[in-house]
């Protein structure tokens, strides 16, 4: 019974305090975003801020309920809950009404609920339970594969609901796998993939200035190949420490580029694109030669990396045009600066940047933002809510908000690390990953860093489903953390 007495002391009140701060700040921001110069009642249950007040009230109830449940419960029901969630997600595809082409909302009486918000929770619990089972190792291929399945199964179903944005969140759970021992190279390669994809898209289709002749050069390929070769040299250095190979690679590349440059000078028809391709070819050849001479497989693996670079580069345009829906293509093109359409698809991004930019250093003051009040920014109380913060509180307020949010996430990492049970730790990291992804994509899209992916800013954006989902997820972790001294499960 000693434990029970200490339970309330064990709760991390700092995190709850940060939560309360964010939710309250969120409500005031929603009030500001939906503020009408002609109707400014603080409590109006018909208005968005009035409803949000109800959602917040109910969130408190949910939080208390979550805190009252025994912490072992979450571990015990994880699989069942996951299975039920998968079934619900699949059902949703068929029974949900069509809202702007997406089938993701369920109607429960007066409430509308998006199961995808809760699928994250189920997936986190399931992943935590699976990865904390005795004998689990990410080095075991079977285990790794199963863990990936747990993560991506709901994502695939959610894509089928046409909610690609929500599905992408699951990618963030790769961070959990990394923390639990997955080779960091996977993340690096993933990031490189994205980099090559962007390079090829961005620089193969440079927008032409009026009157400019299109050039036959494909700068995307040139950049991708050159960076690929440089990265391969880093790999060779890190994993083989073979100086002879490095010298050979540098040498053949120097020869190719000097010879190519001379050729280009006399025969302009010899494009740099071809020279870059040639240098990629001779680099691969060098690596293959070293593989046979030294009989070390590592050279072969690095060669495969370069083959991957080549394949990805050649496929990027195709994948972009065939796999992505047109509206997704445009969103990416706008971020890459390939398309500028301030009245069309670029409108949201343009207007949200105007709103934030016009805030200046000190902001226009609470309730004095004109861009958001007058509806220039779309979705101003949901996905684009950061615009209101940027416009009314300026650089100082925005940075303060970002610092607080960052502190909140780092606090969660700290909590995750102090867990004695692997289940709690893995769950905690999953939680941080989800928050980080939402934070990065949401503020990234309104400031024009990332493409527009319609996902909310946790605790700030208007919406019951997302607030409840994140509240349950967070308080489950706080509950687990409060019990960290009791539970000495297998680490």
């Amino acid at each position, binding site marked *: 019974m000693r434990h029970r007495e200490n339970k309330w002391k064990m709760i991390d009140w700092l995190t709850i305090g940060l939560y309360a701060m964010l939710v309250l700040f969120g409500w005031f921001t929603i009030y500001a975003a939906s503020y*009408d*110069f*002609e109707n400014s009642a603080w409590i109006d249950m018909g208005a968005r801020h009035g409803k949000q007040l109800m959602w917040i009230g109910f969130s408190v109830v949910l939080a208390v309920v979550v805190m009252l449940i025994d912490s072992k419960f979450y571990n015990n029901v994880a699989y069942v809950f996951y299975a039920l969630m998968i079934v619900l997600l699949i059902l949703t595809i068929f029974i949900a009404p069509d809202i702007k082409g997406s089938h993701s909302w369920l109607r429960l009486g007066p409430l509308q609920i998006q199961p995808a918000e809760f699928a994250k929770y189920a997936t986190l619990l399931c992943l935590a339970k699976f990865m904390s089972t005795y004998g689990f190792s990410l080095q075991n291929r079977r285990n790794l594969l199963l863990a990936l399945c747990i993560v991506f199964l709901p994502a695939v179903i959610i894509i089928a609901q046409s909610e690609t944005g929500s599905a992408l969140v699951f990618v963030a759970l790769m*961070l959990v796998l*990394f*923390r639990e*021992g997955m080779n*960091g190279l996977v993340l690096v390669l993933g990031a490189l993939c994205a980099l090559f994809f962007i390079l090829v898209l961005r620089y193969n289709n440079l927008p032409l200035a009026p009157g400019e002749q299109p050039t036959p050069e494909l700068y995307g390929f040139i950049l991708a190949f050159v960076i690929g070769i440089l990265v391969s040299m880093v790999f060779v250095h890190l994993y083989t420490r073979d100086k002879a190979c490095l010298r050979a690679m540098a040498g053949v590349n120097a020869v190719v580029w000097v010879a190519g440059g001379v050729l280009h000078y006399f025969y302009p028809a010899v494009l740099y694109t071809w020279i870059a391709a040639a240098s990629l070819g001779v680099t691969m050849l060098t690596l293959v030669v070293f593989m046979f001479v030294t009989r070390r497989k590592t050279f072969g693996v690095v060669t495969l990396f370069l083959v991957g670079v080549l394949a990805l580069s050649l496929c990027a345009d195709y994948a972009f045009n065939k796999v992505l829906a047109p509206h997704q293509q445009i969103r990416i093109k706008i971020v890459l600066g390939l398309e500028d359409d301030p009245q069309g698809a670029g409108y949201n991004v343009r*207007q949200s*940047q*105007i*709103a*934030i*930019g*016009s*805030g*200046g*250093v000190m902001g226009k003051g609470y309730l004095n933002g*004109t*861009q958001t*009040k*007058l*509806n*220039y920014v779309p979705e101003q109380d949901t996905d684009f809510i950061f615009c209101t913060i*940027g*416009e009314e509180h*300026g*650089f100082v307020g*925005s*940075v303060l908000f*970002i*610092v607080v949010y*960052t502190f909140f*996430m*780092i606090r969660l*990492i700290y909590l995750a*690390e102090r867990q004695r049970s692997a289940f709690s730790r893995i769950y905690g*990291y999953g939680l*941080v990953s989800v928050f*980080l992804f939402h*934070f*990065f994509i949401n*503020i*990234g899209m309104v*400031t*024009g*860093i990332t493409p527009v992916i319609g996902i909310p800013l946790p605790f700030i954006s208007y919406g019951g489903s997302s607030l409840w989902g994140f509240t349950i997820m967070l308080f489950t972790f706080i509950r687990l953390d409060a019990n960290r001294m009791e539970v000495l499960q297998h680490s």
Partner: protein
Amino acid sequence: MKYKRKHQDSRSRQITMVMLVLVVCVLFIVRLFSLQVLDDTYKDSAESNAFLRKTIYPSRGLIYDRNGKLMVSNQPVYDVMVVLREMANFDTLAFCQVMGITKMDFEERMADIKNRRKNPGYSRYTPQVFIPQISYQDYGLLQEKLFRFPGIFVQQRVARQYTLPCAALQIGSLGEVTQKQLEADAYYKRGDHKGQSGIENQYEEALRGQKGVEILLRDVHGRIKGKYNDGANDVAAVPGKNLTLGIDMELQAYGEKLMQGKMGSIVAIEPKSGQILAMISAPSFDPNLLVGRERSKNYAALSTDPTKPLFNRPVMAQYPPGSTFKLVQALIMQQEGIFTRNTLLPCYDGYYYTRTKKVGCHHHKSPIDLPTSIETSCNAYYCYGMRRMLDERLDKYGTIQGAYNVWRDYVFGMGFGDALGIDYPGEKDGVVYRSSTYDKIYGKRGWKSSTIISISIGQGELLATPLQIANLAAFIANKGYYKIPHLVTMVGNDSIDIAYRTPHKVEIKDKYFDVVIEGMARAVKKGTARFGQIPGIEFCGKTGTAQNPHGDDHSIFMGFAPMDNPQIAISVYVENSGFGATWAVPIASLMIEKYLHRSIDSSRVEIEKRMLEKSFY
């Protein structure tokens, strides 16, 4: 050992996670810094998004005549505006009926509104002008039925209203600013009206006042959502200043009436002050023609009229001064000691300047003295004068050029040659040749008085505007000074430019003026201008006839009254009407009588009637 390595590994992974979070945080801070601190174009974009700067137009200054009577005021006119987005279920036919237009007019106008080239400010959400400047009566009709036409509303503007339909050219008119004016003065916005001619143009800055601005908040659909900052940033409009003119409105209207059916001009000046009492350009027109919807149509008609009603003759027409110029000669010759009052000279029907060529003269007694030469308007007298000055006083002047230059300096000192500088746009210079110009034409030694003998009687290479001739009458009345003639006497409560209040001295002695005035008085009593006698008013004048190579001569008269205490100096030109005495003299005398007595004596009603009825075209 293995545990320790594992611990180190997870420690580094933990740090990597923290670093990842921090990288995102720093990335955002950098991005926000560039958006919010470095780049300030977003502020402007936001303002042009959300602020509707509604211009508040000040009321334009009013214009009063010299007696404080209102001449020009403002009247409300109404623009029919349309917001295309709100025109749901629009009953086009009924609307056309109310407006008195056909369905085709309606569609044509709509197409013009939507044409972004003709109407660069087009938007479905904001008001567009459908029909500008409908009258108060039309507005009344429309107002009753306005509720039936969604998207249509009426916006009030201000147009000019005239107490009497006179002085159209002098006051000038308002018109929409042109592209050039927009570029030259940032005060104006497209669609603004400004003074485009006359006093309205000359005193534009005083009359227009200062625009105010009301900052309204506009939402994404263009709807107005109230005032920005509760109006704290609004600027109130400053009304324009009222003008007071030297013009006597009744005299002006009377003069225009007298000049009906004639071409020419009347300029009346108060000699002491230089204030213009009346400035008539005939034919004149109703200033209301250039107000409102029909402005451009009427303007086109006026500008193609062969009688040139838009040509402001008093300041723009250059005529040879004719015999009125003999007064100038009489003054110069006396001052230079060439004539005295009693210099007797012969004239037997003219002056022979070569053996065979003569300047003709009408029959009168001979020989005559100086006042008689003015009374009879003798040509020969002044030819002798000019010859004596240019050819026979080389001991004094050295060369003919020297003599001519002295003469020319006198003429310029009397306000001839250059434009006088009236406060009215477009005043023309007169013409008085330089001696060097004659040198160029005839060679340095190639000319003498006989070469340029016509200028001695105001013909030849001499041109002057009616304003300059009126000014001549004014400074003779003043015996030696004039103030630059001007239309406006007060701007708001401020007096006018010092330039109009400074007397210009004419370097001729008083006693020489007396001789000239004696001649002018006799001209009216029994000489060339005897048709102009007014009961109870002793006045002085001089007729003239400007030779016109294009048709009949122009009839000229200039003079002032009363002789002892001059109140009005006047010049009258009647184009193509022949000898000066017949038309110009009676018209001038009627103007003088009207101004001094405010009415016409019954003995002269017959003359008045004849003047009013006469038409030359």
